[in-house]
């Protein structure tokens, strides 16, 4: 099965400690896995603008994977997201990945996705929600989808136990 991960592209400054967050709330950091959805997924307009979508193969059941990646925060005051993607390793796996474009908030850059699938829900809606393939950068071959094999071992990092995991190991250990 293939899944799509929405990845944070930049660090967000944490809050200062206050009464509600005595340790200071820890917000998302570059590489954090924010969401997982089955492939192909029709992401929203702001999602494809604000996150990097990474496609990965896995044998894990979707619901199990979603609950593990999106929740299971053992200390809610100290950590926002349990898993992150290592961008250095991602660059090794996809050499054409342009990190300047990934971090550029003024560009919609989604090198893993197929441009037409990325915007199919938006074309034709019109008004403020119109989004055409001409507005997104999916790399040199915009209709060639890329995905990562489930065997990659130094990509997904568990911030709680401080170990890299293969995607199928996030459930089994």
């Amino acid at each position, binding site marked *: 099965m293939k899944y799509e991960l929405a990845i944070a592209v930049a660090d967000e400054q944490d809050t200062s400690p206050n009464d509600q967050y005595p340790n200071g709330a820890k917000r998302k950091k570059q590489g954090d896995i924010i969401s997982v959805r089955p492939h192909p997924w029709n992401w929203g307009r*702001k999602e494809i603008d604000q996150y990097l979508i990474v496609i990965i193969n896995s044998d894990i059941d979707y619901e199990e994977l979603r609950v593990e990646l999106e929740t299971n925060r053992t200390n809610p005051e100290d950590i926002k997201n349990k898993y992150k993607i290592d961008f250095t390793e991602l660059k090794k796996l996809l050499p054409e990945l342009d990190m300047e474009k990934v971090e550029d908030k003024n560009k919609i850059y989604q090198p893993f996705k197929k441009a037409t699938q990325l915007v199919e829900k938006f074309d034709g809606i019109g008004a403020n929600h119109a989004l055409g393939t001409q507005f997104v950068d999916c790399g040199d071959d915009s209709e060639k989808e890329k995905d990562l094999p489930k065997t990659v071992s130094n990509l997904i990092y568990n911030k709680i136990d401080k170990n890299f995991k293969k995607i199928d190991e996030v459930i089994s250990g």
Partner: protein
Amino acid sequence: MASSRKTGTSENVSTYDSAGGKDYSALTTWEQATDNDLVTATQSEVLECYAGAHADGNLYVTGATISSSYMRIIRPASGEEHKGIPKTDGSCVEFHLSSTAQYIFAIVENYFKVQDIVTKINSSYNGGESTTFNIWVNAGYVEVVGCMAIDSDSDNKPHVGHYTGDMGNNPAYWINCMVMNITSVTSTGTGFFTWAADTDPDVYWYNCTAKDCANAAFSSSNPQCLAKNCISQDNGSDFVTDGGGAITQTTCTSADTVTFRNEGSDDLHLANTDTTANGQGTDLSGDAIFAFDDDIDFKVRTTDWDIGFDQYSPHLDANSINLRTTAAKKNGTDTENIKKINGNNV
């Protein structure tokens, strides 16, 4: 007058549909895109949802810098609201608890508001009670308004409809909410439940309705609670406390004699024959804690307040009446005056 659906100052509205085509398709991506310093930005963040049976949730709301003026809100987009009946067929904004998750919303942020959504528990989570909302860990002044929880599951796992827990010394408000059919485990199937380590937090249940909950309708384990204008009907027990908990009741009923419009169709609006709840409530439009004047259907309550989430009004729809009248002949053919009542052609 004051609506129970409060708004934020200077709202920045984003849209949501798990089917795509809007700003966001996942709750977590919106939450983490908006956990900013809203006070410095002088902006509230709102997610307006479109109708659908959204298999989404596990949403952990925390981290935005907020105030009583600038906060985060989830509500239906205009025209996508429920009709006061907890439909689970995708016709209104519904969030369905997935098979392995514990909650749909874990709210760990002050002043967060959720309005007018339907939640369905369908979870085999086995680490404790699974629930729709979990107001949690020192979160205060959270408002859940016009929300309905229904449990169609029978997996023998513990379920709670609306949960308030461990809020420190902060209050939580449940207004015009409904829970029904929390039946999976007799000992724990509870409609509105609150727990805290101490007795200080105040939980306010105003004009809420709980029906067919196996264990209890309203239950407090330590917190001090105020229940005003609430209905408990056909539950294992009604208003239950343990530890240092207390539930002070004002014009509530647990007589099990309220007549609903159509229980078989999960329609718990008051029937026109009801005399238990109809006109028996306390006017909360000037309430010192949470003043409001509308009901589950956004209808302004009259001077004779009813008990429960619905303020009775005559119900007219295309199936119950026929006002189609032959008005005139035009070119020898009958024409009809088509009248609209409640938005329906009749």
